[in-house]
């Protein structure tokens, strides 16, 4: 049993243990908004903070873990950066939960300045929160550098980015998995650097009393947060490119010039797409707003178009045997398109003024996370479990796929309807002005319970088998 198997199994067990808890936090929030529960505002915002940070944290880590495992097909992967990332991530998560549930921190997952300074119950929560962020940032930075180093030991930077394919050359061949992983690793580094800068600036104010510029802090926070969640999705796509053709009984994908172009474009454009979160910050220079608008349109089109075309072409005429892993991957891509389309609608300036502070935003990011990115990682986990235990989770196929997809669809649908009715986001109770929000919250919460049930079934199955991998070692 290799060390890489062990650490991958450990990541799976950890992520799958946290996932249902984070879902439960989300359900409690929706039921509270639906007036089926009555949580205090502080509890609601603490749950909102924990839900967002946990979901982003665990699925970013799982996406990285999947890529780390599959990378061994092409290069020598050293496990210490992954193990280092695992340990420090656990430390970060424990600190984070302490800051939220003991310290009363309730900033929301983007922790916009100066919200972290407003923990209501304790004075130690903000520094512990900053420490947690630093811990997570260092964990993922070292891990990402370790993977990048592994790739660069075999490929030059130009080869890893498939620049030779841009000119039509076929040799040396860069597999799409290496190309996407490299662009994603390079793309995510700015997020970590921005996190470091933000933490330092927060610390300067907390300990040094030096005030910060809110616009600067917001820009830096979104370079971190927005880039991180985008790149998380691309790690999932890398996994899909690597595994999906094999699941359909087809040969591996090749890097064509348009594939190389698309992912190189993504590398550059994703850094500037976050500007669409600042359309309403009127003091932001107008030129950046234009860049944000253009980048928001350009960023998803190459990746989505190329990936969708590849996946549909793979499935067509393949006689694919549908079980959980290919179903997760395929439906993940389809919902990625839907969520991406909803995101582009919101990223258009004129629409943004109507939609951006409404539930349309959680609608689109839950579409391509809960029904997109999470499914890519679950696809990898299901494949991994079959590789290691021989169990293809056949008994679970119908109940898990049905409950998860039905529940997930209903859940995001409730967000979309409420968002288009101008129901605002980030509030624990809806005022009478938008009282329809309560009904849709209740409906969304009930559908989320179906997702929760599917998750419990799946988690019990996968954890049992991964635990055996760990125990065997």
């Amino acid at each position, binding site marked *: 049993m290799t060390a890489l198997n062990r650490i991958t199994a450990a990541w799976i067990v950890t992520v799958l243990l946290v996932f249902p808890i984070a879902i439960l936090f989300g359900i409690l929030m929706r039921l509270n908004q639906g007036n089926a529960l009555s949580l205090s505002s502080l509890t609601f915002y603490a749950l909102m903070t924990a839900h967002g940070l946990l979901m982003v944290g665990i699925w970013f880590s799982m996406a990285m873990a999947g890529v780390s495992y599959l990378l061994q097909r092409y290069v020598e992967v050293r496990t210490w950066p992954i193990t280092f990332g695992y340990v420090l991530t656990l430390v970060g998560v424990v600190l984070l939960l302490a800051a939220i549930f003991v310290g009363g921190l309730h900033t929301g997952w983007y922790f916009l300045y100066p919200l972290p300074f407003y923990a209501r119950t304790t004075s130690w929560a903000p520094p512990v929160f900053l420490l947690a962020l630093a811990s997570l940032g260092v964990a993922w930075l070292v891990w990402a*550098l370790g993977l*990048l*180093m592994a790739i*660069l*030991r075999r490929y*030059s*930077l130009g080869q890893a980015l498939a620049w030779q394919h841009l000119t039509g050359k076929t040799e040396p061949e860069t597999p799409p998995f290496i190309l996407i992983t490299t662009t994603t690793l*390079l793309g995510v*580094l*700015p*997020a970590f*650097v*921005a996190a470091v*800068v933000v933490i330092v*600036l927060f610390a*300067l*104010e907390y300990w040094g*009393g*030096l*005030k*910060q*510029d*809110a*616009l*600067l802090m917001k*820009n*830096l926070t979104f*370079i971190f947060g927005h880039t991180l969640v985008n790149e998380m999705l691309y790690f999932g796509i890398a996994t899909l490119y690597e595994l999906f053709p094999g699941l359909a009984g087809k040969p591996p994908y090749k890097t064509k010039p348009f594939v190389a172009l698309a992912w190189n474009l993504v590398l550059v454009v994703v*850094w500037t797409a976050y500007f669409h979160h600042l359309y309403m910050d*009127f*003091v*932001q*220079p107008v030129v950046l707003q234009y860049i944000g608008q253009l980048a928001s349109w350009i960023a998803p089109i190459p990746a989505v178009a190329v990936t969708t075309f590849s996946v549909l072409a793979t499935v067509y005429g393949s006689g694919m045997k549908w079980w959980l892993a290919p179903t997760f991957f395929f439906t993940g891509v389809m919902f990625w398109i839907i969520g991406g389309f909803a995101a582009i609608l919101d990223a258009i300036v004129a629409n943004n003024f109507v939609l951006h502070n409404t539930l349309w935003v959680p609608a689109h990011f839950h579409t391509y996370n809960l029904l997109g990115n999470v499914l890519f990682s679950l696809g990898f986990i299901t494949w991994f479990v079959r590789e290691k235990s021989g169990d293809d989770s056949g008994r679970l196929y119908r109940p898990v796929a049905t409950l998860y997809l039905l529940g997930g669809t209903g859940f995001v649908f409730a967000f979309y309807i409420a968002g288009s009715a101008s129901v605002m986001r980030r509030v624990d109770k809806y*005022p009478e*002005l938008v009282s329809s929000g309560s009904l849709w919250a209740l409906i969304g919460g009930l559908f989320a319970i179906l997702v929760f049930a599917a998750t419990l079934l799946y988690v019990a199955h996968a954890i049992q088998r991964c635990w055996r991998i760990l125990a065997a070692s």
Partner: protein
Amino acid sequence: MLAYIGGILIAAGTARAQLNEGQYYLRTLPDVPIVLVDGSKTTLHRLFQSQSVILTLFSAHCGGLCSAYLLYLRQALGSTPTGFRVVVLSFDPRDTLADVRVLTQRLALAEHPSWQWGVMDPEQIPRLLAGLGYALRYDPTRNDYDHSIVVFVVDRQGNILRRMEGFQDPALLKDLVREARGNFVFSYPLPATDVALRCFDFDKETGTWRLSWGMALLLLPPVSSLAIALLLRLLVALEQFRAADSSS
């Protein structure tokens, strides 16, 4: 009268306990009956129905700031505003319609339909004051009221959108007007000296701004990432050079 005094005390207490402007935001005002200066009867919400409203309160018996404040409002808002109406209500139970008419004539606002003046039943006044968070205290030695001077922006559903206390820069009052018309109003912090890095430097004297070092900091993440990638490549090259060297 007892009910009125009791209500005033409650309203004053409420106002003192809730100085946070945010607590009044989007609060729906009570639909109290109003008698307009021409003698017609209506309710507060009917006054709001057709247009957004800038609402203020006064006393015709006021020996203090009321007249000066109303003159200031007339100057800032104009006698024939467009896109919104100004509703001016008396909080003083002593005021009669005749008193109010005299005041409107003195202010040269009697003939302007965009300015609507009215009085309320004394028992209804505390309801409105509590809804507005309007501070009021009767001073028997002066036989007059200590009171807020404040304007509110109220939407067509009777919800408070903004409030502004005192004699402010007319430019700020114009922002209120734009908000009453349904336009988006920018707000921003004044430049401070204790900020570490700003995106912009603003010159208060000339009203001009220029990009500052904070904005340059946004280039740091992508630039440092490229630098890290190149550094890693160098490290790998060094590693491979050493390996080749030791094997030879």
